[in-house]
């Protein structure tokens, strides 16, 4: 297996996995263990800081032991200006701080960049992960759970919710707790504080230019740059938007429709019908999102996976702002820890600096969890 050092710690299943990736058209890439820390903190947020191993170069640059592979693989792809579509695979250790257990884990996975056939690429990613687990855990019943950020966003749009609210709910998607808190807020919005004059009048008149001018002078008095951060126009616009929402509440119908949607949890082969039923009963049109969903269902069955082993859970998602569509997990039985996790991240490459949008989908598998399930032969 070429460049990979075969230390005694390397999982015994590693060569089979690399052979599988090669056979499925995803050649292995090498990713340095030491990575610049900023891209990870920028993408995942500051909370990651306490879960990664940070260090510093002699020149003061923040470095970390790679906590995952997706971001470095995407950064390499951008830097090398490789053509697309392109599939990359990896297998190696990731490093994370945890209170209990070890800090080093083996992960393997595939990143599929630039394929414009979204449904096919999504299905292939699920199929790759499933093939890996079926090979390394023969005879085990694998359970695949699938969610879709774009369907949730389509429901929010179809309900006619104001833009601010849609954004707020969309970023809480995947966290039951945050979503409940956001919904409670919208059903019973906080009172805004009284605005001082002349701001109150300018807001009442919807005078964006007047407001922006007033804000610009406040900023210059405070020595704030009007371009380095939030601009006067941006503040004025949001202030007026907020005032318009002051008297609006999330309606009982919209709330009920959202609850009904989030409760959908069906085998994948019944999912498109369930979504159509929901849309019809709520009087909504989910349009392109539903068409994309159905195309993916067809592509998944074309990959020949057991469709009764796949469930669609409408509430399943990941609250990270670069996931845009499919998310999925694969586990064994009722185990709470997934063996594989993946999803579509069409915004990630642009956020990382790609000049043109590059769609991407990928998954990662926890090899240590597989080895545990395989028992003593690790």
């Amino acid at each position: 297996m070429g460049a990979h050092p075969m230390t005694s710690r390397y999982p015994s299943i590693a060569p089979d996995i690399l052979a599988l990736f090669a056979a499925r058209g995803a050649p292995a890439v090498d990713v340095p263990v030491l990575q610049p820390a900023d891209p990870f903190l920028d993408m995942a947020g500051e909370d990651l800081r306490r879960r990664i191993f940070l260090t510093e170069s002699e020149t003061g640059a923040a470095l970390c032991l790679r906590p995952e592979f997706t971001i470095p693989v995407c950064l390499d792809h951008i830097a090398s200006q490789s053509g697309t579509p392109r599939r990359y695979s990896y297998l190696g250790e990731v490093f994370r701080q945890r209170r209990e257990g070890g800090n080093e884990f083996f992960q393997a996975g595939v990143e599929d960049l630039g394929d414009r056939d979204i449904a096919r690429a999504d299905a292939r990613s699920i199929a790759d992960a499933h093939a890996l687990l079926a090979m390394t855990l023969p005879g085990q019943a694998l359970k695949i759970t699938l969610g879709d950020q774009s369907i949730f966003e389509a429901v929010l749009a179809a309900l006619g919710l104001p833009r601010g609210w849609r954004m707020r709910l969309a970023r809480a998607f995947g966290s039951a707790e945050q979503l409940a808190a956001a919904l409670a807020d919208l059903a019973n919005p906080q009172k805004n504080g009284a605005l001082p004059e002349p701001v109150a009048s300018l807001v009442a008149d919807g005078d964006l230019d007047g407001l922006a001018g007033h804000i610009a002078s406040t900023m210059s008095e405070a020595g704030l740059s009007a371009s380095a951060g939030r601009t006067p126009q941006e503040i004025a616009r949001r202030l007026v938007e907020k005032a318009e929402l002051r008297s609006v509440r999330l309606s009982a119908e919209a709330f009920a429709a959202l609850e009904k949607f989030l409760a959908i949890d069906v085998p994948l082969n019944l999912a498109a019908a369930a979504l159509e039923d929901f849309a019809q009963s709520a009087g909504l049109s989910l349009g392109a999102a539903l068409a994309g969903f159905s195309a993916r269902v067809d592509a998944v069955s074309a990959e020949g996976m057991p469709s009764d082993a796949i469930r669609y859970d409408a509430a399943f998602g990941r609250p990270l702002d670069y996931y845009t569509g499919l998310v999925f997990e694969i586990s064994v039985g009722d185990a709470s820890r997934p063996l594989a996790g993946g999803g579509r991240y069409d915004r990630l490459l642009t956020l990382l600096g790609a000049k043109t949008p590059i769609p991407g989908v990928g998954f990662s598998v926890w090899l240590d969890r597989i080895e545990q399930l395989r028992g003593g032969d690790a």
Partner: protein
Amino acid sequence: MTITLAIPSKGRLKDQSLEVLAKAGLTVSLPGDDRRYRARIEGRDDIEIAFLSASEIAGEIGQGSVDLGITGEDLLRENVADWESKTAIATRLGFGSADVVVAVPDAWLDVETMADLDDVAAEFRQRHGRRLRIATKYWRLTQQFFSQLHGIQVYRIVESLGATEGAPAAGSADVIVDITTTGSTLRANHLKILADGVILRSQACLVRSLKTRTSADEALAGKISASLARAAGG
């Protein structure tokens, strides 16, 4: 049987600590030489006084290298990971009050609450090509408040070692998390505290390390705590 009690080595916190100790009948006999960092309590050979900086005191109690110490609750929560498993606040002493707060520019008329800031942070990258920046020396408190309590993930912390309130005007950060007593420094810098932006109402505390001690030392630590609690309450 000896107990180490650490107290701040300078400033008002030092004076007020000595005052409350004296009131509790524990008068510190100051070393003649100001550069010495050890002292005794008159008539008490069983208590050793160590003068340290307030943030060192929090760290030393967390490690268990001193038994008791007077320090700010903000420093304890900030400097000691998992502080509740290693230390306990024996009593709050009623001085050194200060709030750790989230403050944004006055000009941000649309931002009154953490929910507003959440909205702004979520769209920041798209609008400005970078994440919202928060200047602070309170990494841990900021992360806990933003990420764990308010579910705000997308922001970057910019380390600030002094004059944090100047960071927005200097362009090094958009908002700040800092300590304030009267709010006048924030106002002078055209910053406002968010309505639900008080992270911690801090004051000086007597803090006890939870390391295991002999029962005699434990009893002594308990007695010192009790007399300081009475002195602070009276």
